[in-house]
């Protein structure tokens, strides 16, 4: 079946502009995660959606970052007034949301802020 998809695969933007990154999880997965990975680093947790519960936003680095998940499926991560330090690969993952929580990752969006 189809895996997790993300769009765009690459995004180049100018400092100060807003960007939207999209994630389509695997059908039937109730949990959805966003991570950020800077060059050569591990994964930094950003936000977690589980069903209809309030999202866990504890990993968002600033109030310029927000995410929503419509209808329990597609999610959009929005970064406002982008800064150069926002440049990274943004990875989305989904899972059934129960332990053990094996996550299935999308290919990521590589964001470059000039």
């Amino acid at each position, binding site marked *: 079946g189809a895996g997790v998809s993300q769009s765009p695969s690459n995004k180049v933007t100018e400092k100060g502009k807003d960007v939207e990154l999209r994630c389509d999880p695997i059908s039937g997965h109730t*949990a959805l995660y966003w991570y950020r990975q800077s060059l050569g680093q591990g*994964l930094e947790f950003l936000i977690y959606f*589980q069903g209809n519960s309030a999202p*866990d936003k504890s990993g968002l680095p600033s109030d310029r970052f927000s995410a929503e998940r419509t209808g329990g499926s597609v999610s959009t991560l929005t970064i406002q007034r982008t800064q150069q330090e926002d440049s990274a690969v943004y990875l989305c993952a989904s899972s059934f949301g129960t332990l*053990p*929580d*094996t*996550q299935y*990752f999308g290919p990521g969006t590589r964001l470059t802020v000039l």
Partner: protein
Amino acid sequence: SQQGEEDPQALSIQEGENATMNCSYKTSINNLQWYRQNSGRGLVHLILIRSNEREKHSGRLRVTLDTSKKSSSLLITASRAADTASYFCATDGIPSGAGSYQLTFGKGTKLSVIP
């Protein structure tokens, strides 16, 4: 802060040799998983080991878990050039500030297999 830490940070071996990567973690866990990442893109799940298991095999992969030492190892036998990738361990549990279903990833070991 990172829950898991892999070592070494980088490993270079010849094709056919075995590769061993280690992961240490700080808090109690339910499960530990290993993931593989090619070229900085999406991660692929390799294997999961539960906290009550000590060893698990999958093809050329062997994972061990020592909960008393809070450590795990991933062994890839008879390595191939195609095994070149970064390998991450991920733990679930309840690290400070996170929900119980979240995975916490280490920084990874970059494995290079030379043909």
